[in-house]
Every structure is written in structure tokens, then in C-alpha cells.
């Protein structure tokens, strides 16, 4: 037994000693360096993948869970948690292939059905398995974000059906168009509408936010909205959730560099700065307009900033990140606290006001602030955004955002129609009054007698 390591050592040493050829030795060293670099990148990408999963559970589950009334907290958390299971299985079976297979303009293909051909091969810099699982975490959180709009009143069965269909019709095509080979909006793959979307301003935030608005309009207001008080039942857990989102977002954005190199540092810093500036932006406006700076305002502002900086993270300087974050915080406050009340729709947890609006602000501002000073332009481009003299990029970014709005809105409306016909989307008023925890799941979060 003890001789085995010695034998292995000799086996490794012998060819080394016999090598007279320096070329072979160099090739061997190069291979070792590449392997070491791959390991470093892979380590960061695996950590990032875990961080992005943490954004959904417990991050988003806590953030949203604290904002609803106590009778709906488990139902709301379940929306996030169940997607960690549903979106994963879908991704493994077909989703990854439809998002990242082949080189089509609009959607992937069936090359990687059942993860066929997705293994440890690291020719793309990191093992294909790592890339697959990192991208999976985005496919989980995106539909989970929508649940903020229909919180406290959607049937669980309808929510499941909706998010499955939505993944097929909106998420997989969006991911492919923006990040996939040959994608329509992929600036780095000669897309006809070349957009920069570092970590999912369009794919994740505009798509989920606009879909959330359509959901809120289609499903209608909560019973008693807005005359009855529907205060957040526990802002403490929302604060914890928001902090986990902030930290998780480092994986989301800096992980989107797909390596542990300098690009990840650019995105990491921009992410943090964006969140900080947006927190201040929201709180400042709130303080002036409503008289008091609120904890809920601070965490909502932070999330708005994180959303806003998402498409820009790897393309902008730290100072630009401060500007983007601040603007995202102010604009999202105005949308959530002013415009929403005037229009009267019940986007219960402000999925549209934060993700749809923040995502759009970020997408357009990416066209302004993206710069070759921190990121390489696509082949043949002189610069990235307006600050590099490429003013037309603002138009490209706006077109990309617009296309996402249209796809998300139309698809969501059709999917809701289908869900309504098949299972009915809304709980009946008795169940709504009772609360989703009891009506849908047969349990309560806070049990006095136990």
C-alpha cells in the first residue's frame, strides 16, 4: 500500500529526467500555467455561482418575505425557494441548451439537451459545467423577481405554470440574444443591435420588471388596496435580505466577468459604488419629500442601484458607477413613491418600479458611460459608449431595452391568459383574506401556541 505513492512519484519523475527536449518542457510548463489560471478562475466562478444562488435564497425570499403581511410570508418565500428547484431541473433538461446552444439570432438549439456535451472541458477559460451552473443561478432569480408584483394573491399552481412558460418564452431567448453565440443583441458577437449588458440589465431586470408590471395589471389589486393598510410585516428580515442581495450581487456582477481577472475587479467596485450612491440618492429624496429617511427607503435604494449598475458593471469607471447608482436611486424612488400612486396599479413589492425602471435606466446609461478605459471594445470598434465618442451606442442600448420591454410584455400577457384558462391565476377572495400561507400551503409562519 505504502509503495504506491513512491511508484507514482517515480513514474512522474522518470519522463522529466529523460526530457532532453526543452520545447517539450516549455509546453509542459505552459500547460501547467494554463491549468493554474483555469483553477483560479474556476474558484472565483464557483464562489460567484454560490453567491448568486444566495441572492434568491435567502436574499430575495427574506427581502420580499418581510414586505408582505404576516399571513403571506411563507407563500412569498416559497415563490423564491421553489424556483431554486424548478428552474434548476428545467435548466438541466433543456433550458441551458435553449439559452446557450448554437449560434442562432433569437434562441439556442437542442445541442445541449440533458446537458449533452457540457462537461469539464475548459477551452472557454472555465469548465463548461461551471459556466452552466453560474448561468443557471440567473435563470433562478429572474422569474423569482417577478413574484413581487403578484405577491399575496396568485395561486401557487398558476405561479409554477407561469414561471415555467415564462422561462421558455422570455428568459431563454433573452439570455441567448444578449449573451449567446450570434445573439441579436450581443455586441461581442456582431449582433445587429449591438448592446452591452454585462450581467443582465435587459436579460434579468428589464425582462422581469416589465413582466411584473403586466402581472400586476392583469391580476389586479390586492383585496382592500389601497384603502387598507398593507404595511410590511417585518422590515428586519427585509433588511437582512437586502444585505444578502448586496453581497450576492458581487457574484452576480463580478462573476459575470467569467474570470478572476481585472474585469472582475472593475465590476466588483462598480457594483458596490452603484449600490452606495443609490442608497444615498433614494434616502435623500425621501428625506426631502416625505420628511424622514427610512430604513425601507435605504434598502430599496440599494437594490435599485444594484439593478442600475448591473448592465454597466464591467464597462464603467468607479466614478461613473456612482453617477449611475445615484440616478437609479432617484428615478426608482420617483417611480415607486410618486408615479405608481398616481397610476394606481398594485405592483405590491415594486418589482417593476425597481427592476423594470432601474434596469432601463442602467441599460441606457451603460451606453453613455461604457468606456475602453476599463474594458476592451468589440473587435473593430473604436470605443464603447458616449464617453468614448460613440454616441450611437445610447440608441443601441435604448433599442435593446425597448425590444426587451416588448417581448416581456407581450409574452407575459399571453402566458397569463393561458394560465388563467388552465388553472386560474388568482386565489378566490376567501383564500386571499385567509392568506396564502394557510390557503395555499396549509401552514403559518408565526405560531403563537407552539
Amino acid at each position: 500500500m505504502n509503495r504506491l505513492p513512491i511508484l507514482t512519484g517515480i513514474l512522474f519523475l522518470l519522463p522529466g529526467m529523460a526530457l532532453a527536449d526543452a520545447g517539450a518542457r516549455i509546453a509542459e510548463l505552459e500547460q501547467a500555467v494554463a491549468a493554474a489560471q483555469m483553477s483560479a478562475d474556476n474558484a472565483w466562478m464557483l464562489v460567484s455561482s454560490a453567491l448568486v444562488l444566495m441572492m434568491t435564497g435567502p436574499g430575495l425570499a427574506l427581502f420580499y418575505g418581510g414586505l408582505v403581511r404576516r399571513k403571506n410570508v411563507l407563500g412569498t418565500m416559497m415563490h423564491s425557494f421553489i424556483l431554486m428547484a424548478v428552474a434548476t431541473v428545467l435548466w438541466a433538461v433543456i433550458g441551458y441548451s435553449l439559452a446557450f446552444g448554437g449560434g442562432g439570432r433569437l434562441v439556442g438549439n437542442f445541442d445541449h439537451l440533458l446537458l449533452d456535451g457540457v462537461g469539464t472541458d475548459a477551452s472557454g477559460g472555465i469548465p463548461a459545467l461551471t459556466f452552466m451552473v453560474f448561468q443557471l443561478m440567473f435563470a433562478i432569480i429572474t422569474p423569482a423577481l417577478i413574484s413581487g408584483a403578484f405577491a399575496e394573491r396568485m395561486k401557487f399552481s398558476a405561479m409554477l405554470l407561469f414561471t415555467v412558460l415564462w422561462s421558455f418564452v422570455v428568459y431563454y431567448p433573452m439570455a441567448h440574444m444578449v449573451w449567446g453565440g450570434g445573439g441579436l443583441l450581443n455586441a461581442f458577437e456582431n449582433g445587429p443591435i449591438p448592446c452591452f449588458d454585462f450581467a443582465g440589465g435587459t436579460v434579468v431586470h428589464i425582462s422581469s420588471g416589465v413582466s411584473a408590471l403586466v402581472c400586476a395589471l392583469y391580476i389586479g389589486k390586492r383585496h382592500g388596496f389601497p384603502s387598507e393598510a398593507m404595511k410590511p410585516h417585518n422590515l428586519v428580515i427585509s433588511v437582512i435580505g437586502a444585505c444578502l442581495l448586496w453581497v450576492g450581487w458581487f457574484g452576480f456582477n463580478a462573476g459575470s466577468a467569467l474570470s478572476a481577472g481585472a474585469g472582475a475587479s472593475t465590476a466588483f467596485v462598480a457594483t458596490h459604488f452603484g449600490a452606495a450612491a443609490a442608497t444615498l440618492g433614494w434616502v435623500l429624496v425621501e428625506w426631502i419629500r416625505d420628511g424622514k429617511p427610512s430604513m425601507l427607503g435605504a434598502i430599496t435604494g440599494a437594490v435599485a442601484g444594484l439593478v442600475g449598475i448591473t448592465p454597466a458593471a464591467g464597462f464603467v469607471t468607479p466614478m461613473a458607477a456612482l453617477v449611475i447608482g445615484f440616478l437609479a436611486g432617484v428615478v426608482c424612488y420617483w417611480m415607486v413613491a410618486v408615479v405608481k400612486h398616481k397610476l394606481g396599479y398594485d405592483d405590491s413589492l415594486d418589482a417593476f418600479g425597481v427592476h423594470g425602471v432601474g434596469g432601463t435606466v442602467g441599460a441606457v446609461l451603460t451606453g453613455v458611460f461604457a468606456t475602453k478605459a476599463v474594458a476592451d471594445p468589440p473587435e473593430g470598434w473604436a470605443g464603447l459608449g458616449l464617453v468614448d465618442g460613440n454616441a450611437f451606442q445610447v440608441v443601441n442600448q435604448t433599442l435593446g431595452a425597448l425590444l426587451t420591454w416588448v417581448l416581456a410584455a407581450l409574452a407575459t400577457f399571453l402566458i397569463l391568459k393561458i394560465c388563467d384558462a388552465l388553472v386560474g391565476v388568482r386565489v378566490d377572495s376567501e383564500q386571499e383574506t385567509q392568506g396564502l400561507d394557510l390557503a395555499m400551503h396549509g401552514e403559518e409562519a408565526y405560531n403563537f401556541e407552539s
Partner: protein
Amino acid sequence: MKKIEAIIQPFKLDEVKEALIAIGIDGMTVIEVRGHGRQKGHKEIYRGQEYTVDLLPKVKLELVVPDSRADEVIQTLAAAARTGKIGDGKIFVSEVAEAIRIRNDDRGEAAL
């Protein structure tokens, strides 16, 4: 025997409790309640949505004392709970027909 129910400001509970213990009252029941009298509620704003909260958190003390001690207890309690501002609360006094100690079936003032 008299039952004394006092609805007081939550932050005054410790002071009231200590004052009562100091004069030898060793039993009380405390309940967290919500309500309002002349004190009107306050305004809360969540993401620009304004709510008027008119039921405010209060603490209700319940204690049953011998008739002979009722006045002293009421005065001690009121003095400890008083801030002089609106919202300090109220004390209600009522007759108690019977008291029973569950452990050994003591009756009346002996059960207090």
C-alpha cells in the same frame, strides 16, 4: 378585593413594576395591547405610501389587591406611569367577587 387595570405607555412598564414591587405588590399580569384614547395615531410612510396608524402599542397591567391597599397601589402606579403628556393611559378599578389559588384552593384575600 379590587381589580386594577392600568393601560400605560410601554416604556413606563419597568418603572411601574419596580414601584409596585417596592410597596410589596408581588403579583401582576402584563399584556401587550393596542389602542388609543384622546391621543391620536401617527403617520407612517412606506415607499411613499402613507398610512395612519391609530391603534398604538400600549401595555396593560392587571392586578388584584385587598380593598385596604387599593388606593395606595393606584397612587403608586399612577405616579410611576405619569409623564404628564397625552397618551399616558388610564386606570380602571372594579370589584372582584372571588379569588382562588389553584394550587391549594385558598379563597379570597388569602389567595392574592
